[in-house]
Protein backbone atom coordinates (compact mmCIF):
# COMPACT_ATOMS: atom_id res chain seq x y z
CA UNK A 1 0.00 0.00 0.00
CA UNK A 2 1.36 3.35 -0.98
CA UNK A 3 2.10 5.68 1.85
CA UNK A 4 -0.47 8.45 2.04
CA UNK A 5 0.60 11.86 3.21
CA UNK A 6 -2.20 13.53 5.11
CA UNK A 7 -2.68 17.16 4.11
CA UNK A 8 -3.59 17.90 7.72
CA UNK A 9 -0.33 16.55 9.10
CA UNK A 10 1.79 19.56 8.37
CA UNK A 11 1.00 22.56 6.22
CA UNK A 12 4.06 24.32 4.79
CA UNK A 13 4.73 27.89 5.91
CA UNK A 14 2.55 30.00 3.61
CA UNK A 15 4.12 33.40 4.25
CA UNK A 16 7.34 33.91 6.16
CA UNK A 17 7.37 36.75 8.68
CA UNK A 18 10.13 38.52 6.71
CA UNK A 19 7.63 39.04 3.83
CA UNK A 20 5.76 41.52 6.03
CA UNK A 21 8.74 43.85 5.94
CA UNK A 22 9.46 43.50 2.24
CA UNK A 23 8.39 46.82 0.71
CA UNK A 24 9.27 45.94 -2.90
CA UNK A 25 6.58 45.83 -5.63
CA UNK A 26 3.76 46.45 -3.20
CA UNK A 27 0.32 47.56 -4.37
CA UNK A 28 -2.23 49.47 -2.35
CA UNK A 29 -4.09 46.26 -1.38
CA UNK A 30 -0.88 44.79 -0.05
CA UNK A 31 -0.16 47.91 2.03
CA UNK A 32 -3.74 47.87 3.30
CA UNK A 33 -3.36 44.21 4.30
CA UNK A 34 -0.11 44.87 6.20
CA UNK A 35 -1.44 48.03 7.87
CA UNK A 36 -4.67 46.27 8.82
CA UNK A 37 -2.67 43.63 10.64
CA UNK A 38 -0.30 46.10 12.29
CA UNK A 39 -3.20 48.28 13.52
CA UNK A 40 -4.99 45.12 14.67
CA UNK A 41 -2.00 43.98 16.73
CA UNK A 42 -1.63 47.49 18.15
CA UNK A 43 -5.29 47.56 19.13
CA UNK A 44 -5.00 44.15 20.85
CA UNK A 45 -2.11 45.53 22.89
CA UNK A 46 -4.18 48.63 23.68
CA UNK A 47 -7.16 46.48 24.78
CA UNK A 48 -5.01 44.81 27.47
CA UNK A 49 -3.44 48.13 28.50
CA UNK A 50 -6.90 49.69 28.72
CA UNK A 51 -8.18 46.92 31.00
CA UNK A 52 -5.08 47.40 33.16
CA UNK A 53 -5.59 51.17 33.38
CA UNK A 54 -9.25 50.73 34.36
CA UNK A 55 -8.16 48.74 37.41
CA UNK A 56 -6.80 52.08 38.76
CA UNK A 57 -10.42 52.93 39.55
CA UNK A 58 -10.42 50.18 42.18
CA UNK A 59 -7.48 51.89 43.95
CA UNK A 60 -9.58 54.97 44.55
CA UNK A 61 -10.17 58.51 43.44
CA UNK A 62 -6.59 59.71 43.83
CA UNK A 63 -5.11 57.00 41.58
CA UNK A 64 -7.67 57.63 38.84
CA UNK A 65 -7.40 61.40 38.93
CA UNK A 66 -3.59 61.17 38.77
CA UNK A 67 -3.95 59.10 35.61
CA UNK A 68 -6.47 61.59 34.14
CA UNK A 69 -3.95 64.41 34.76
CA UNK A 70 -1.23 62.46 32.89
CA UNK A 71 -3.68 61.62 30.08
CA UNK A 72 -4.23 65.33 29.41
CA UNK A 73 -0.53 65.82 28.59
CA UNK A 74 -0.11 66.86 24.88
CA UNK A 75 2.15 63.86 24.18
CA UNK A 76 -0.55 61.55 25.55
CA UNK A 77 -3.15 63.36 23.43
CA UNK A 78 -0.99 62.74 20.36
CA UNK A 79 -0.99 59.04 21.23
CA UNK A 80 -4.80 59.27 21.42
CA UNK A 81 -4.81 60.54 17.83
CA UNK A 82 -2.55 57.62 16.79
CA UNK A 83 -5.01 55.29 18.53
CA UNK A 84 -7.97 56.87 16.70
CA UNK A 85 -6.07 56.50 13.40
CA UNK A 86 -5.60 52.79 14.19
CA UNK A 87 -9.27 52.35 15.08
CA UNK A 88 -10.50 54.19 11.98
CA UNK A 89 -8.14 52.41 9.58
CA UNK A 90 -8.86 48.97 11.03
CA UNK A 91 -12.64 49.53 11.12
CA UNK A 92 -13.02 51.06 7.65
CA UNK A 93 -10.58 48.68 5.96
CA UNK A 94 -12.30 45.84 7.84
CA UNK A 95 -15.61 46.85 6.23
CA UNK A 96 -13.94 46.73 2.80
CA UNK A 97 -12.36 43.33 3.51
CA UNK A 98 -15.71 41.96 4.74
CA UNK A 99 -17.58 43.24 1.68
CA UNK A 100 -14.97 41.86 -0.73
CA UNK A 101 -14.94 38.57 1.20
CA UNK A 102 -18.71 38.33 0.63
CA UNK A 103 -18.20 38.95 -3.07
CA UNK A 104 -19.39 42.57 -2.98
CA UNK A 105 -17.45 45.20 -4.93
CA UNK A 106 -14.52 42.94 -5.83
CA UNK A 107 -13.86 44.80 -9.09
CA UNK A 108 -14.07 48.19 -7.39
CA UNK A 109 -12.16 47.38 -4.24
CA UNK A 110 -9.38 49.85 -5.00
CA UNK A 111 -11.92 52.69 -5.45
CA UNK A 112 -13.69 51.50 -2.30
CA UNK A 113 -10.37 51.66 -0.43
CA UNK A 114 -9.76 55.28 -1.46
CA UNK A 115 -13.34 56.37 -0.67
CA UNK A 116 -13.09 54.79 2.79
CA UNK A 117 -9.62 56.32 3.23
CA UNK A 118 -11.08 59.76 2.47
CA UNK A 119 -13.93 59.21 4.98
CA UNK A 120 -11.35 58.01 7.52
CA UNK A 121 -9.14 61.07 6.94
CA UNK A 122 -12.09 63.44 7.50
CA UNK A 123 -13.14 61.60 10.67
CA UNK A 124 -9.53 61.60 11.90
CA UNK A 125 -9.21 65.37 11.47
CA UNK A 126 -12.51 65.94 13.31
CA UNK A 127 -11.49 63.57 16.11
CA UNK A 128 -8.01 65.13 16.41
CA UNK A 129 -9.54 68.60 16.68
CA UNK A 130 -11.86 67.36 19.42
CA UNK A 131 -8.99 65.66 21.27
CA UNK A 132 -6.88 68.83 21.30
CA UNK A 133 -9.61 71.41 21.85
CA UNK A 134 -12.03 69.80 24.30
Amino acid at each position, binding site marked *: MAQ*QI*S*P*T*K*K*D*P*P*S*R*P*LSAWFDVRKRRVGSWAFALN*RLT*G*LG*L*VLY*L*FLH*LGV*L*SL*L*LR*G*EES*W*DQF*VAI*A*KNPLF*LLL*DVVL*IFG*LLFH*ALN*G*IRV*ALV*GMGIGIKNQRTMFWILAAIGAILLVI*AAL*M*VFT*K
Partner: protein
Amino acid sequence: MTSATVTREKKANRAATVWITQVLTGLLLIAILTLHMISHHFVVEGGLRDYQQVLDYVQNPLVFVLELVFIIIATAHALLGVRAVILDIGLSEGAKRTLNWVLAILGAITLVYGIWLAFALQQL
Protein backbone atom coordinates in the same frame (compact mmCIF):
# COMPACT_ATOMS: atom_id res chain seq x y z
CA MET B 1 -15.27 10.49 -0.12
CA THR B 2 -11.79 9.97 1.34
CA SER B 3 -10.88 10.90 4.89
CA ALA B 4 -8.53 13.56 3.51
CA THR B 5 -11.46 15.19 1.67
CA VAL B 6 -13.62 15.08 4.79
CA THR B 7 -10.81 16.66 6.83
CA ARG B 8 -10.37 19.37 4.20
CA GLU B 9 -14.12 20.11 4.24
CA LYS B 10 -14.11 20.29 8.04
CA LYS B 11 -11.18 22.70 7.95
CA ALA B 12 -12.90 24.83 5.31
CA ASN B 13 -16.12 24.95 7.37
CA ARG B 14 -14.21 25.90 10.49
CA ALA B 15 -12.32 28.63 8.62
CA ALA B 16 -15.63 29.99 7.26
CA THR B 17 -17.17 30.01 10.75
CA VAL B 18 -14.14 31.84 12.16
CA TRP B 19 -14.27 34.37 9.29
CA ILE B 20 -18.01 35.05 9.77
CA THR B 21 -17.49 35.40 13.54
CA GLN B 22 -14.68 37.87 12.87
CA VAL B 23 -16.89 39.91 10.51
CA LEU B 24 -19.91 39.95 12.84
CA THR B 25 -17.89 40.83 15.95
CA GLY B 26 -16.12 43.50 13.88
CA LEU B 27 -19.41 45.10 12.83
CA LEU B 28 -20.75 44.98 16.40
CA LEU B 29 -17.48 46.49 17.64
CA ILE B 30 -17.77 49.40 15.22
CA ALA B 31 -21.24 50.20 16.59
CA ILE B 32 -20.38 49.75 20.29
CA LEU B 33 -16.97 51.39 20.00
CA THR B 34 -18.52 54.44 18.35
CA LEU B 35 -20.94 54.74 21.28
CA HIS B 36 -18.07 54.06 23.73
CA MET B 37 -15.82 56.78 22.24
CA ILE B 38 -18.61 59.37 22.07
CA SER B 39 -19.97 58.74 25.56
CA HIS B 40 -16.60 58.27 27.31
CA HIS B 41 -14.53 60.88 25.51
CA PHE B 42 -16.12 63.17 22.95
CA VAL B 43 -19.10 64.47 24.96
CA VAL B 44 -17.14 64.69 28.21
CA GLU B 45 -15.59 68.04 29.11
CA GLY B 46 -11.82 67.48 29.21
CA GLY B 47 -12.10 64.21 27.25
CA LEU B 48 -12.03 61.87 30.25
CA ARG B 49 -14.55 61.24 33.02
CA ASP B 50 -13.35 61.89 36.54
CA TYR B 51 -13.63 59.20 39.23
CA GLN B 52 -17.17 59.99 40.34
CA GLN B 53 -18.42 60.44 36.76
CA VAL B 54 -17.09 56.97 35.81
CA LEU B 55 -18.79 55.36 38.81
CA ASP B 56 -22.08 57.16 38.09
CA TYR B 57 -21.82 56.13 34.44
CA VAL B 58 -21.40 52.39 35.10
CA GLN B 59 -24.34 52.41 37.52
CA ASN B 60 -26.63 52.80 34.50
CA PRO B 61 -27.85 49.21 33.74
CA LEU B 62 -27.90 49.76 29.97
CA VAL B 63 -24.33 51.09 30.00
CA PHE B 64 -23.26 48.20 32.23
CA VAL B 65 -24.70 45.60 29.82
CA LEU B 66 -23.17 47.39 26.82
CA GLU B 67 -19.75 47.42 28.50
CA LEU B 68 -20.02 43.67 29.21
CA VAL B 69 -20.97 42.97 25.58
CA PHE B 70 -18.08 45.22 24.53
CA ILE B 71 -15.56 43.23 26.59
CA ILE B 72 -16.82 39.91 25.20
CA ILE B 73 -16.85 40.82 21.51
CA ALA B 74 -13.63 42.86 21.69
CA THR B 75 -11.81 39.90 23.26
CA ALA B 76 -13.23 37.46 20.71
CA HIS B 77 -12.39 39.72 17.75
CA ALA B 78 -8.91 40.51 19.08
CA LEU B 79 -7.87 36.94 19.76
CA LEU B 80 -9.31 35.60 16.49
CA GLY B 81 -7.31 38.34 14.75
CA VAL B 82 -4.11 37.36 16.56
CA ARG B 83 -4.78 33.73 15.59
CA ALA B 84 -5.16 34.70 11.92
CA VAL B 85 -1.89 36.64 11.96
CA ILE B 86 0.04 33.80 13.62
CA LEU B 87 -1.50 31.14 11.35
CA ASP B 88 -0.44 33.18 8.35
CA ILE B 89 3.20 32.57 9.27
CA GLY B 90 2.57 28.86 8.78
CA LEU B 91 2.32 26.36 11.65
CA SER B 92 2.25 22.58 11.95
CA GLU B 93 -1.03 20.95 13.07
CA GLY B 94 0.39 20.38 16.56
CA ALA B 95 1.46 24.01 16.88
CA LYS B 96 -2.00 25.14 15.66
CA ARG B 97 -3.69 23.08 18.39
CA THR B 98 -1.35 24.57 21.01
CA LEU B 99 -2.04 28.07 19.67
CA ASN B 100 -5.81 27.48 19.89
CA TRP B 101 -5.49 26.39 23.51
CA VAL B 102 -3.21 29.27 24.48
CA LEU B 103 -5.57 31.82 22.92
CA ALA B 104 -8.65 30.17 24.46
CA ILE B 105 -7.03 30.32 27.91
CA LEU B 106 -5.91 33.93 27.37
CA GLY B 107 -9.44 34.80 26.23
CA ALA B 108 -10.99 33.13 29.26
CA ILE B 109 -8.63 34.98 31.64
CA THR B 110 -9.36 38.29 29.88
CA LEU B 111 -13.12 37.75 30.07
CA VAL B 112 -13.07 36.69 33.73
CA TYR B 113 -10.93 39.71 34.62
CA GLY B 114 -12.96 42.14 32.49
CA ILE B 115 -16.34 40.96 33.79
CA TRP B 116 -15.05 40.90 37.39
CA LEU B 117 -13.75 44.46 36.94
CA ALA B 118 -17.11 45.66 35.58
CA PHE B 119 -18.97 44.14 38.55
CA ALA B 120 -16.38 45.46 41.02
CA LEU B 121 -16.75 49.00 39.63
CA GLN B 122 -20.51 48.76 39.94
CA GLN B 123 -20.15 47.84 43.63
CA LEU B 124 -18.01 50.92 44.44
